[in-house]
C-alpha cells in the first residue's frame, strides 16, 4: 500500500479485561484506504474480542477507535454501521425465515432508513440493487431460495453481500472462511480481494488459514495473549522470530512454498 493513502481506521491503546483476565491489552494500529489487513493469532489471542470492540458489540476497558479521524469508541454497532462499516461474523448471522435476496433487501431498507415504513411489500424494495450484490458474490441463481437451506459457504458469501450493501468504506471480517472447504476459502478471499480493489475499500480480517492470509493480505498483525506482537508485511512476519516462537515454538512453518491447499 502506498504510504500516502489516507488512514481509515486508527486504533489507540485498545484494551479489554473480563474480570481479572486481560483479553486484549494496549493494541495500536492503523488501516489505510484500500488495504487488506490480516489479524492473526492463536486461539484465544483476543481477535474476536478486538473485532467486537471495533464494531461496538463490546465496550473497551480503555483505548480509542477512530474512523476517518472521528472517535467511535463504544458506540452501538448500528451507529458504527451507519458510518460506513460493514462486518461479517465468525458464526454467520442471517435471517433464516427470509429468502436469500430478502436478507440483502433488509440491509438496504435499513440503509435507506425505511425500517418503520408501513408501505406495501418490502420484497419489492431495492430488488435490483440486492440482485447486483448477489451477482457480485456469485450467487444470483439462489436469490429466491429460503436462506435456511443454504450451504454454509453460501451463507458466508451472503453475509459478505449483506455487509457490502451500504457501500462501506471499511469491512471487518471475523474469520470469513471458518468452516469452509479449502477451495471455497481461496475463492471467497479472492472475491473479497477483488471487491476491495474495485471499490477501494479497506478490510480488516482475522484468519486461521495461513495460505489464505499469505495469498491475500497486504499486511499482517499478530496477536498473542491479547498483545500485538508483530505488525508488518507478509515477508517481515514470516521472518519474525517472536512470531515463530509463539506460533511454532521455534519451528519454521512459515517457510516459503509451504502450502497445503
Amino acid at each position, binding site marked *: 500500500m502506498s504510504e500516502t493513502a489516507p488512514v481509515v481506521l486508527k486504533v489507540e491503546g485498545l484494551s479489554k479485561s473480563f474480570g481479572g483476565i486481560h483479553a486484549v491489552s494496549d493494541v495500536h494500529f492503523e488501516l489505510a484506504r484500500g488495504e487488506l489487513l490480516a489479524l492473526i493469532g492463536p486461539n484465544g489471542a483476543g481477535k474476536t474480542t478486538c473485532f467486537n470492540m471495533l464494531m461496538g458489540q463490546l465496550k473497551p476497558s480503555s483505548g480509542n477507535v477512530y474512523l476517518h479521524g472521528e472517535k467511535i469508541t463504544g458506540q452501538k454497532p*448500528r451507529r458504527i454501521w451507519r458510518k460506513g462499516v460493514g462486518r461479517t*461474523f465468525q458464526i454467520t448471522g442471517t435471517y*433464516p425465515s*427470509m429468502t436469500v435476496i430478502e436478507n440483502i433487501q433488509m440491509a438496504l431498507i435499513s440503509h435507506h432508513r425505511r*425500517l418503520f*415504513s*408501513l408501505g406495501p411489500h*418490502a420484497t419489492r424494495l431495492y430488488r435490483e440493487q440486492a440482485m447486483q450484490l448477489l451477482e457480485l458474490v456469485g450467487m444470483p441463481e439462489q436469490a429466491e*431460495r429460503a436462506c435456511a437451506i443454504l450451504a454454509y459457504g453460501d451463507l458466508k458469501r451472503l453475509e459478505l453481500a449483506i455487509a457490502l450493501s*451500504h457501500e462501506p468504506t471499511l469491512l471487518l471480517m471475523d474469520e470469513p472462511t471458518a468452516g469452509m472447504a479449502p477451495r471455497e476459502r481461496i475463492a471467497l478471499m479472492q472475491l473479497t480481494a477483488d471487491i476491495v480493489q474495485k471499490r477501494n475499500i479497506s478490510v480488516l480480517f482475522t484468519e486461521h488459514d495461513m495460505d489464505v492470509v499469505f495469498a491475500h493480505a497486504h499486511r499482517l498483525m499478530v496477536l498473542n495473549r491479547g498483545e500485538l506482537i508483530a505488525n508488518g508485511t507478509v515477508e517481515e512476519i514470516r521472518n519474525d522470530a517472536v512470531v515463530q516462537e509463539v506460533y511454532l515454538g521455534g519451528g519454521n512453518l512459515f517457510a516459503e512454498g509451504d502450502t497445503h491447499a
Partner: protein
Amino acid sequence: MGLFIAQLLTGLANAATLFLVASGLSLIFGVTRIVNFAHGSFYMLGAFIGYSLMQVLPGAIGFWASVLLTGVLVGLIGVIVEVLVLRPVYKAPELFQLVATFGVILVIQDLALMVWGAEDLLGPRAPGLKGVVRIMDEPIPLYDLALIAITPFVLFALWYLIARTRVGVLVRAATQDREMVAALGVNQSWLFTGVFFLGAALAGLGGAIQLPKGGADLLMDFNILAAIFVVVVIGGMGSLPGAYIAAVLISVLNVFGVTYLPQSTLVLMYIVMAIVLTVRPYGLLGREEVVGEHGQVGEPERPIKPASTKARVLVGILLLCLFALPLAGSHFLLILTTDIIIFCLFAASLHFLLGLGGLVSFGHAAYFGGGAYVAGLLVVHVNAPMELAFVLAPLGAGLAAFIIGWLCLRLTGVYFAMLTLALAQLLWSLVFQWDEFTGGDDGLVDIWPAEWLSQANSYFYFTVVVGVGGILLLRHVAHSPFGYALRASRDSQRQAEATGINTKRVQWMAFTLAGTLAGVAGALFIFSKGSVFPNELEITKSFDGLIVVFLGGVKTLSGGVVGAASLELVKDYLTRLEYWRLALGLLIIVVVVLAPHGIVGSLRKLRERLSGRAEDDVSTVTSSATATANLQSPESER
C-alpha cells in the same frame, strides 16, 4: 409489636406452600425449558388427594404420611402427564408445549370436579398441632410454627439434591446444555421424567401441606399460578434460595397488605415484582440470561409471500359469505360470528407479536380488556358517545402497551414473558379491586353502541368491517418493511443490530401496535356485549390467546386467525356438554400431539407430502444454521 411479629410469622408460614410449589415450577423450567402452566393443577390435585388421604389415615402419623404420600401420588400423575402428553412434543416448535399443559389444566379441572364435586372442602387440622401458642400476647397457631420450621429443611434437602448429588449434577448440566448431556450418554427422556416427578411432587406437597390453613377448591389452580410465576421471577429463574426468599417476601407482604392496605392486596405483589425487576432484571438471585437468537427452534419459518390470487379470491368469497350472513336470519349465528371475529382479531394481534416478533407475551389480555375498559369507563363516567369511546379505547390500550412494552423489553426470553404476565395481572388487580371506579367484580354494564349501530345487523356489519380490517392491516404490516425489520430482529438480533436496525425500538413499536389492535378487539367486544368484567383482562384470557396462536401455527401468517376461529367454533359446541373442559382439554392435547406444527403448518405439510413436493423443504435441512429460541436455549449464542 406483638401484632407485627404475629403477622411476620403468618407470612413465613404461608411462604412454605408458595415456596414448595414455585420451586417445582422452577426446576421443571430449568431442565426441560417447559413453562408448565399445569403446575397450579398439580397443586390443586395435591390438596384434593391430601384431603382424601387424611380422611382415611388417622392421627398425627396418618396426617404426615398423607402429606408425603400425596407428594408421591401427584409426582406419579406428573410422570403420566410428561410421558403421555409432553414427550411426543418435545421436538415441536418453541413453547408449543404450553398448549399441551393448558390442555392438562382443563382435563384436571373436570376430573377433580368428577371425583371431589363442586363443593369447597375445608381442610382437616393437623393432629397434635391444633393449638396456639402466645407470643407477645398474640396467638400463633402451632401448625404455622411447624411450617416455618419445616421449610428451611425442604430448601436444604432440595439444595443438597441439586448441588451435591450425582443426580443434581445431571440436572444442572441439563439446565445448561441438554444436547451435550445427551451426547455424554445420559438418558435424557428419563431425566426429564424424573425432574417432572420431582416438580409435580413438590406442587402436590404444597397442596397437601396448606390443607390445615386453607382447604381444597376448584379455583386453586389458577389462583396460585400467577403467584408462583411471580415468586420464580423475583427469586430468579432456577434459583432455589431465590425462590425461598421471594416466597417469604411475597407472603409476608401479603399478610401486611391485608392489614394495612386491604384495597390493594393483589396489586402489591405485582408492584414488588416490577420494582425488583427494574433493579435486578434477572431476579434477586438469578443469573443473566445470555440473549440467544429469537423465536426459532427446529425448522425455521418459511419465507412469507404476498397472498396468491387463489388466496385472495378465497378471502373475498369468505367476506361475501360474512356479509350475506344476516340473510340467514339466525340471531344466534350472528352473535357467534361476531364473537369469532373479535377473538380472531385479538389472536391475530398476539400472533403478530409472538409469531413475527418472537416476543412471547403472557399478558396480552391486558390490552384487550384494557381497550374494553377504557371504552366502558368513558361511557359510564363521562357519558362519552360510542364513537369517541371506540376511538379512544385502542389508543388507551396502545398507550398501556407502549409503557408496559418499554418496561418488559429490557428483558428477554422467559423473563420478558413473565413480566408481561405480571404487569397484565397488575392491571387486572387494579380493575378488580378499585371498586368505586371500575365496578370491581361487578364489571361495567349497560354500554351499548350508538343509535346507528343499534340494530343487530348493523353492529354485525360494523364488526366485520373493523375486525376483518384489523386482521388485514396486521397482515399488510407483516409484509411491510417494518414487518420485515421485526422478523429480522427476531431471526438474528446480532445481524440486525450490525446492519443499523434498532431492534429494541422495532420490537417496542410492534408491541404497541399489537396492543392497540387488541384494544380495537376489546372495544368491539364491549359494545357487542354491553358489558365488561375483570376476567376479560385476566390471565386465563391471555392464555386463551396463546393457545389459539400456537394451535393455529406460530410459523404461519394465518395461524392466529385460523386457530381462533377453530377453537371458538369447537368451544361453542363443546360447552353444551356437562364436562366440556375435559372434552376440550383432551381435544387440545390430541391436536397438539397429532399436529405439532399447528393446524395451518401441519395441513401445509400434509398437502406437500401428498403432492410429493419436498425439494427445497426447509425441514430436510439440519438446523446447523438455525437460530435457537431465546426461551428454549438461552445459551445458543456465544
